[in-house]
């Protein structure tokens, strides 16, 4: 346990209690972050800082407010908390505002999530510079004369967090993150200068891919954008590349929160237990993936986490239910937010699938767009590659796909074997049939 942060949290709760709060929850974060980027074989930006912040949620006479400050000097903090409690009492009463029943704090999994890498403290400035230089060099070498610009970046972060509540919660976690990647711009026809990128994030330094591997992937992705054109509007199968699946999935997820249901903003409100996607689609919220970027033993309210099958073979199984909206709906809480989102992978690679699909589009990125959680309607710009029986035909750009989530997820025809490991959304590439892709 981080004693300094815990002691400060306990002290803050005492102040809140003395000021008249019935209950309170306090979180304190302390961290360090370093970023280094290179361009034209010299450092472009070097940034480093240590940060601290405290948030306190005050429950007073069934009234509620949340406060956040980066000024953790005790004299400042005391006045801040006292003012917070006094101001909370001026708000309207809300009988649903309480801390969670402590029984939901209990039963935390006894597992090492592997989200803290002790090697963080041994990372030297020289090592950071060597990695980012190597990424840039690989990009420049692979890009050759077409390269206009390469910016390579590495960053890392260490974060310590404690969470306490006046009804018995005491929890803490330490995390590390390591990120590396680059953005590359190439000269194309006319004024077009395609900009490709590839960034990866892991919780352990040892699982970050090598600099050369990252650089080669940056170059591959950028060269794939050359010659991008808009083709005629057509109904086609599309494959959404693994790292881009979250952009589509997010529109579905937004309707799976208890708040969306209670506020009549969910097109899935009456769909629990019903089929909302084809049976190939299963979605799991798994907080206990070892080394997962979203792994955690407790959620933001301190509730003990557990693995949940949110969508089971196309059937909506659960919502994300926090304590407050759960009480409003009369539902038992699950958790207020997702951890690691896992779509169980299929058996075939994207390459194999493309060979059997005939003519289709591999979507490698989205641009703009939105999704309406009340109606399920969605529309998004896309770019990627047109292919025919596995062979690349043409880069495509400036095109759109649209639909309604309740229809779109029924069109899922296959899940590929390539879950994206560098995000808390561990999504494989997904294949959808009969999608209208708008162009000329």
């Amino acid at each position, binding site marked *: 346990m981080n004693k300094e942060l815990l002691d400060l949290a306990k002290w803050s709760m005492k102040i809140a209690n003395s000021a008249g709060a019935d209950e309170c929850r306090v979180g304190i974060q302390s961290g360090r972050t370093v970023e280094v980027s290179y*361009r034209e074989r*010299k*450092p*472009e*930006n*070097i*940034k480093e*800082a240590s*940060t601290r912040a405290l948030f306190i949620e005050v429950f007073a006479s069934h009234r*509620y*407010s*949340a*406060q*956040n*400050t*980066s*000024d953790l000097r005790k*004299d400042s903090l005391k006045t801040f908390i006292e003012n*917070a409690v*006094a*101001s909370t009492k001026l*708000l*309207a009463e809300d009988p649903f*505002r309480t801390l969670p029943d402590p029984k939901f704090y209990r039963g935390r999994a006894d597992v090492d999530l592997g989200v803290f890498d002790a090697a963080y403290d041994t990372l030297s*400035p020289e090592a950071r510079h060597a990695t980012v230089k190597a990424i840039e060099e690989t990009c420049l070498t692979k890009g050759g004369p077409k390269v*206009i*610009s390469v910016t390579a*970046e590495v960053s890392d972060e260490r974060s310590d967090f404690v969470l306490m509540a006046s009804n018995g919660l005491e929890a803490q976690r330490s995390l590390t993150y390591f990120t590396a*990647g680059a*953005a590359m*711009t190439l000269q*194309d026809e006319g*004024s*077009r*200068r395609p*900009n490709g*990128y590839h*960034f990866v994030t892991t919780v352990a330094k040892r699982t970050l891919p090598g600099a050369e591997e990252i650089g080669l992937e940056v170059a591959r992705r950028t060269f794939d954008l050359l010659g*991008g054109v*808009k083709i005629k*509007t057509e109904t086609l199968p599309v494959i959404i590349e693994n790292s881009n699946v979250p952009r589509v999935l997010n529109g579905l997820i937004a309707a799976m929160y208890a708040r969306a249901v209670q*506020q*009549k*903003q969910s097109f899935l409100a009456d769909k629990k237990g019903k089929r909302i996607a084809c049976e190939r689609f299963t979605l799991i919220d798994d907080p206990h993936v070892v080394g997962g970027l979203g792994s955690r033993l407790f959620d933001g309210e301190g509730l003990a986490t557990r693995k949940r099958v949110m969508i089971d073979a196309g059937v909506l199984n659960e919502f994300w239910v926090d304590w407050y909206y759960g009480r409003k709906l009369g539902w038992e809480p699950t958790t207020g937010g997702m951890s690691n989102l896992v779509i169980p992978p299929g058996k075939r690679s994207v390459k194999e699938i493309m060979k059997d699909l005939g003519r289709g589009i591999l979507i490698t990125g989205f*641009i*703009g*767009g*939105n999704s309406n959680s009340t*109606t399920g309607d*969605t529309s*998004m*710009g896309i770019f990627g590659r047109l292919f025919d029986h596995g062979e690349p035909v043409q880069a495509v*750009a*400036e095109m*759109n*796909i*649209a639909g309604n989530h309740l229809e779109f997820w029924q069109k899922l025809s296959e899940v590929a074997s390539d879950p994206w490991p560098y995000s808390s959304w561990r999504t494989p590439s997904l294949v959808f049939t009969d999608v*209208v892709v*708008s162009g*000329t």
Partner: protein
Amino acid sequence: MQQLTRRYFLKTTATAAAGAVVLPVLSRDWLAFSATDTKGYFEAGFGITDDLCRKILARALARGGDFADLYFEHTITNYLMLEDGKVNRAFTNIALGAGIRTVKGDQVGYGYTQELTEQSMLAAAATAATIATSTATTPAGAFIGLKTENYYPLKTLMSDIPLSSKLPMVQSVNDRCFALSPLVIKVTAGFNDVQKRVLIVSSDGTKAEDLLPSNFLFTNVVAEKNGRKERAGWNLGGRKDFSFYTQAIADEVAKTAVERTMILFDAVKPPAGEIPVVLGPGLTGILLHEAIGHGMEADFNRKKISTYATMLGKQVAEPFVTIIDDATLPGLPGSLNVDDEGTPGQKTVLVDKGILTSYLHDKISARHYGVASTGSGRRQSYEHYIQPRMRNTYMLAGPATPDDVIKSVEKGIYVQDVSNGQVKIGEGDFAFYVSQGRMIENGKLTAPIKDVNIMGNGPKMLKNVTMVANDLQMSRGGAGMCGKGGQGVPVGFGQPTILVKSLTVGGTQA
């Protein structure tokens, strides 16, 4: 770490991070500062003297560098929210800190601290200094306070407005929404206000202070008709004094939100593909923000990664097209008395009668191009370094009438309200999401449309602006935020009614 294509999003939805009902911790001197006092705030409240600044700057330049600057910030963000009929939650965020930058050519060293102690700030300065590797340079011997215009005068600090004044305003929006239609089933409403005080001190002797308000009143409405639900919202605000928020403003927010929700029950899906698009006046200026504004930010051009990198001085649009980015419009979200590098707020002509005339510069790009900064150096907070950014971007009015523009289209769409814009800088491809609009059939506005993404290419789109009407309007919303490089800053938009002869409309009918 943000990926590049994620860096250029634009949100105009009424989401807010945090807000405040409490006063921050203040010393007695600090409390004495009123809405009209913008000078000496950090010295009186936190002991930031010229001598201390000089010492920190000297540390930042200890290994050389062209210049260094200090950015002190104290921001109070308040957010009151109504849900299920009552203002039953409030959020506060207090940000206090200093960012220290050392610049050598186009290289930047940056450190920041949340503790305004000499020791912490010197440590951050030492981090910034690592970007340079030569001999120490010396900061200016004296700092000269910058005199600026005030484009957002305040009568009262927002933190001095009692809750008893704010709560009824938010409540009245809710009550008005329900009174306007029996179909309304849920309302959320809120008031978000940000009060930011900054001090910028540069090694070249510049010293500037500012007090920046940023606030808006918003509501989101859900209505149900024959088992079908629709949702829409509205907000009004900007860099306003609290006196802006009259009962009439609250009523307008409610009325507009309810009307925008009701019309969605009649909405149809437009056809997919390339069709003429008429953009109505006001908020649709997001088109300019995405299609040209980001591409004119000079960091993208000095790196040659913008599609506009070789077009300066060239004809990019018809002679009736003039596009401006302007920090000097009173009370608008993107207005600035001084930018975050200490350059006075100003107006920049991006396209003058069809000719591309100027990029948007911060100090680094201005030195690169050998021109003066356009006062476009902005940052989200002390935790972030400077980037060239837009402020309030708009197109001047043209010769046509709005009716002429609509009548000229046989079959197309009319865009009334947009959100979620994004651009790919190198290709110039952009997108924005139409949340409200109409079909145009035989020169007349017909069925409503909604939830449609539109895509285009910036340079192509500019050439395809074939009509500009005489009805320029600036958006009156205060919630517009622009994202770039992981930083969000408030921006404004404006546009007259214009015709783009072809854009790609996303739809489900091939």
